């Protein structure tokens, strides 16, 4: 028999205690793995969502950069607008390689969805200039799945056509050529005006907020919202995108009244920093859970050592050296911690969707895709962490057991 097999058999002598101790470690590891996974996943999610905006810099009305970012990511309310003259001024900037104006508005949906509930819902409308917009988002292509064939972008001068994001079409069960109704309250009026549109195309899923957006020509959007000379955002790509170029660009255009220049790196930093406080708190909980688990492991192994005092004495009498006893107890501790580590990883993996739902219900920054990324590296780190914890947690009980004098241990055990 090998020492490892012997250690395993010892653990099964008290299956309930061993199970509870492993569960304690598993819970702590699961919390830690979920936290690290969230940290990675959230950053990736922010990166993907912002990168898929398609532009590196945007100009928008002055306000909180966080609001600006989330407005772009999830639509948002309380929209503020720029004069369209801003677009005309900025487009001549020599550092710009691409530029697109966007008008964002919110329409009310009634009666056209799959649900006949009287309660209304909202649709985010993006008024765009097709050519410049699509050149910044080349991944936005028309879906060719059943009912979506023959889709196309609308002409900029079209007055009754929209392109639906994938999720809008799915939720509303619209096909290409179907009618689509929205009620829009024009600026300066109190009563909404219902309009009928023809679905010109349905986009492939992008995993971004675009999936939940209704696109229409920018001129049409401005007209429907009665804001013929306004814009929400102007998006840019710079010829040489760097911190220096961005600062220079900012300096040039920040002088315009009521305008702010927002780099998307800044938006990412802002969004990440917003959850760092929460992450610190969760990390504290994870650290406490790990400490409690370590104490639990030490306590459990110490109890086991004391219970087996006589047995340890016998093992020494029949030939076990100090290092043999140390090895046995230490292996038992390692087995518990590694078992807990594996259990914790499995727990974290199986609970990912729950954690995501919980996080998204608490903090919705409009990011799409998985917010908890439990990568192989995270699992490896968790496993190594469990092993390190096992190494240290096992030291004292193993030392206590190996230091017992056989004659006294046998006497105590009887």
């Amino acid at each position: 028999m090998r020492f490892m097999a012997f250690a395993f058999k010892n653990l099964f002598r008290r299956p309930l205690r061993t199970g509870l101790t492993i569960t304690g470690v598993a819970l702590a590891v699961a919390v830690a793995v979920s936290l690290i996974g969230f940290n990675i996943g959230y950053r990736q999610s922010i990166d993907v969502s912002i990168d898929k905006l398609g532009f590196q810099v945007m100009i928008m009305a002055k306000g909180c950069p966080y609001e600006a970012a989330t407005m772009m990511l999830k639509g948002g309310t309380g929209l503020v607008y720029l004069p369209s003259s801003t677009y005309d001024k900025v487009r001549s900037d020599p550092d710009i390689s691409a530029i697109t104006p966007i008008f964002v508005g919110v329409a009310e949906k009634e009666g056209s969805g799959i649900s006949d509930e009287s309660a209304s819902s909202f649709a985010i409308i993006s008024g765009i200039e097709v050519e410049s917009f699509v050149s910044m988002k080349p991944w936005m292509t028309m879906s060719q799945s059943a009912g979506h064939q023959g889709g196309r972008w609308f002409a900029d001068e079209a007055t009754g056509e929209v392109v639906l994001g994938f999720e809008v079409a799915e939720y509303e069960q619209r096909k290409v050529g179907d009618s689509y109704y929205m009620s829009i309250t024009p600026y300066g009026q109190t009563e909404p005006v219902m309009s009928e549109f023809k679905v010109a195309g349905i986009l492939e899923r992008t995993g971004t907020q675009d999936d939940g957006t209704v696109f229409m020509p920018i001129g049409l959007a401005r007209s429907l919202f009665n804001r013929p000379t306004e814009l929400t955002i102007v998006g840019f790509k710079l010829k040489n995108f760097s911190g220096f170029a961005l600062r220079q660009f900012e300096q040039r255009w920040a002088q315009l009244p009521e305008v702010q220049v927002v780099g998307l790196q800044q938006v990412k930093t802002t969004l990440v920093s917003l959850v760092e406080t929460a992450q610190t708190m969760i990390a504290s909980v994870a650290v406490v859970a790990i400490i409690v688990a370590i104490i639990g492991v030490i306590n459990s192994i110490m109890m086991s050592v004391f219970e087996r005092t006589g047995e340890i004495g016998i093992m020494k009498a029949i030939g076990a050296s100090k290092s043999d006893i140390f090895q046995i107890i230490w292996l038992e501790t390692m087995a518990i911690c590694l078992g807990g580590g594996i259990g914790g990883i499995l727990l974290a993996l199986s609970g990912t969707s729950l954690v995501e739902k919980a996080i998204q219900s608490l903090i919705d920054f409009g990011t799409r895709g998985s917010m908890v990324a439990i990568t192989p590296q995270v699992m490896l780190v968790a496993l190594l962490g469990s092993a390190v914890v096992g190494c240290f947690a096992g030291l004292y009980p193993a030392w206590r057991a190996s230091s017992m004098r056989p004659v006294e241990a046998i006497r105590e055990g009887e």
Partner: protein
Amino acid sequence: MSNNTETMVAPIISARGLKKHYQRGIETIKALDGVSLDIRAGEMVSILGPSGSGKTTLINLLSCLDAPDAGELLIAGRSVSGLVEEELVNVRQGVLGFVFQKFHLLPTLTVAENVELPLMFLRRAVDREKTLEILRQVDLENRAGHLPKELSGGQMQRVAIARALITDSKVLIADEPTGNLDKANGEAVFALFRRLVSEKNLAVIVTTHNLALGGLADRIITLEDGLVIDEHLRQ
């Protein structure tokens, strides 16, 4: 064992003037106060005496589980005085085998695994055939796969004896091996000891309260207050 053999065979254990004193408050307990004896291969020695006479202390010293305060102890010709614990482990390994009153079998291991346990500590390969042969010698061959809880007291003690034999020990040291057994099982254990002495040329040292069983040994040593008060050969 005859006197002739005693003079011909070198002792495997030789003790001279062993002393072990304990302090209890201001009182000094002389558990052993100068015990000398020789144990040779092929003899069975009983150590008798009332509780507190020093039997277990003597056994612990002869087993190298404890160190004497004074005196000289040779195991297989090697002086063990002043050796540290790890060195004593080396002396014990392969020379001394132990049987205890409470058997001390590991409950999660089968009979065969319990018997083979010392091999793990000696880093020796397990030879299941040899294990079964030893279990055959103690009449437990058909119990190899059983757990200790499935055995009677007498059977458990025989497993403990098999465990002591697996390393080819030269001396079997048994401290009150029949203390937890009924009369029939006690006699069976002593009969087994006798058989091992004659068949395997082992030296067996056994402590007991039971005068009748003790009288089955080749030599009977009686202790009282830490001193040998009588030593005689079996009639």
